[in-house]
């Protein structure tokens, strides 16, 4: 198993390298003068040239990418050009390994930006995943055992309707009614656990978490329903009933056990995708997470921040894939890693 994990990790690292390189190339292929954006509207040509040198944009793409990779491994200093650093030592900022870059726009290292934004996105993703798993799996089981009845049709239909509404609509709707008009929850704003305690933290995450969960709920209801129905039609379910087991035991211990396996995969990958930031939900609720950071960085052509977020989000997905594959060997005794 360890050899397998090591091999998968090595492949994952190579993937991340490729991912960062592709992002670099994509941004340099865009017909936008990065330095002009970084410098600002009022900059003269000379100031732009200085900015370009300071940020290292005057170097070829592969050199910049090399410096980026080196920064991740060994850390680096900004401005990127040693002569610029020597000329103005007071502007030098250190970026320790694993350094993801420096955002001139925010005057902060990308690590600091991500460090501020990531806990918000992670909290939001975790609250959402718990909500959609509890809701999706229980509604899916209920729909499966009442297959064809009005309950089944109601559950599948309603979750589909919820899925069909765009999340910015549901988000604004919830904000306006649940938070503002009915005052059922406080107007959501992110409060960290250190600042407000677990309860306030969670209370503020309820609404955005719900909006995010609603997006995934319909899929999980339908998947759970289909997997449970498939599992319940297997021969081993007939065996379980023939043993004289209670209906509850047959459903949960024998039926659900097999249905959960594909759900674990889906959850792992969906969660990993969300950890990189929920762009729409974070924008609607003005939650300064990775999603909002990405939007702002994209609008301002803040290349270092974009690359940093892309690499991080890619790492989440790759790590989740490895974890899910290894988890499979523990869930299903027939699976051998190799």
């Amino acid at each position, binding site marked *: 198993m360890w050899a397998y994990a090591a091999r998968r990790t090595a492949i994952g690292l190579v993937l991340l390298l490729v991912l960062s390189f592709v992002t670099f190339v994509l941004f340099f292929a865009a017909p936008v003068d990065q330095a002009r954006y970084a410098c600002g509207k009022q900059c003269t040509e000379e100031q732009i040239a200085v900015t370009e040198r300071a940020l290292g944009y005057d170097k070829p793409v592969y050199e910049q990418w090399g410096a980026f990779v080196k920064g991740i491994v060994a850390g680096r200093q900004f401005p990127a050009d040693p002569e610029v650093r020597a000329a103005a030592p007071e502007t030098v900022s250190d970026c320790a390994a694993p350094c993801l870059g420096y955002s001139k726009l925010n005057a902060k290292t990308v690590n600091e930006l991500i460090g501020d934004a990531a806990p918000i996105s992670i909290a939001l993703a975790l609250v959402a995943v718990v909500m959609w798993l509890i809701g999706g799996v229980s509604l899916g089981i209920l729909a499966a055992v009442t297959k064809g009845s009005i309950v089944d049709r109601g559950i599948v239909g309603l979750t589909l309707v919820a899925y069909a509404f765009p999340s910015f609509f549901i988000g604004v709707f919830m904000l306006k009614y649940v938070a503002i008009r009915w005052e059922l929850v406080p107007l959501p704003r992110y409060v960290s656990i250190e600042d407000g305690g677990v309860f306030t933290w969670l209370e503020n995450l309820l609404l955005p978490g719900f909006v995010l969960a609603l997006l995934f709920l319909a899929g999980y209801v339908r998947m759970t329903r289909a997997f449970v129905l498939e599992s319940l039609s*297997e*021969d*081993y379910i*007939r*065996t*379980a*009933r*023939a*043993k*004289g*087991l*209670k*209906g509850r*035991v047959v459903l949960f211990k*024998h039926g659900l*056990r*097999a249905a959960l396996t594909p759900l674990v995969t889906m959850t792992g990958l969906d969660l990993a995708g969300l950890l990189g930031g929920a762009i729409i939900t974070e924008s609607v609720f003005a939650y300064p997470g990775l999603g909002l950071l990405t939007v702002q960085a994209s609008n301002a052509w803040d290349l270092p921040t974009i690359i940093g977020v892309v690499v991080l989000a890619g790492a989440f997905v790759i790590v989740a894939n490895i974890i899910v594959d290894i988890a499979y060997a523990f*869930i*299903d*005794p*027939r699976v051998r890693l190799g």
Partner: protein
Amino acid sequence: MTNMTKSSPTPTATDGTPFLEVDNLKVHFPTADGVVKATDGLSFNLERGKTLGIVGESGSGKSVSSSAILGLHRGTNAQVSGEIRLDGVDLLSLSNEEMRLRRGKDIAMIFQDPLSAMHPYYSVGVQLAEAYRVHNNVNRKAARTRVVEMLELVGIPQPDRRYDAYPHQFSGGMRQRAMIAMALINDPTLVIADEPTTALDVTVQAQILDLLTNLQKEFNTAVIIITHDLGVVAEMSDDVLVMYGGRAVEYGPCREVLTHPEMPYTWGLLSSVPDVSADTNARMVPIPGNPPSLLNPPSGCAFHPRCTFRDEVPGDLCTTVLPELEPASRPGHLKRCHLADPDRIYAKQVLPEIAPDLAKEA
């Protein structure tokens, strides 16, 4: 078969009523296209320590009928009617909970393909222990002891180590042994074996059948063996019931039915059995056509579209009138056929073709 730890339960007192009595059993499935009559009026009796073989093609209602005895159609849309009396108790009138308590305890089932019939995520030992603990209030350790004892009884080597193995780590024969151990773990009085050897190769088949026979003698169990293999029936059964289109078409003592079959469908089954030791002139004659639709069964005798002897019956009886299951020419033997003189037709037309040596002797 060493270490037989269980003594034979005492047979129930014979007060005239049979141990298992199935009377006019009907299992109908309403579907969008109409009612599927999977079993339509099935009756048979079985005593403890005896074996009934139920024979028929796929879709003849064998498995559906046995599932009905186990009450496995409860909770589905199947309509089950008639009477199934086990030791005097009508199983169909029991509540779901009362039936559940008998399932696996009084009546147990051995399934056809043990790889799909066992849960892939739980070890064999855990699955057997579960079957034991649901009917016996014992702790995990006692259940494990009992499971290991049963695994040893059915001839699984190193049962203590194999307890923790998963079904996919067992060979086909070992899995079927484990399945038999699971069925017998609560000393059931009735065991239904649904094609227990179909998924196995021939050498293992014989071992499994021997095992079943020995365990049956040991525990004085009533056994229903469902199969399409007449060889299995000949070896195992005391009585044989031939099913076609959801109904019994021939029923009687095994020896009697197999040596003097009176229904053309049974002749067809006998003609389809390969026999390595038979006369080289013997032919294998397949039954023409396909099993009947249970949704729109043929009029009259359900077998008439495939019957090569229907011209021997005067008029259009075969296509218009469903023959009754009535006594054949010999005692204890029932048949459902319009043919007036089946013995003569079998001896003259069927036997010479499928077993020329036997025909000459006769």
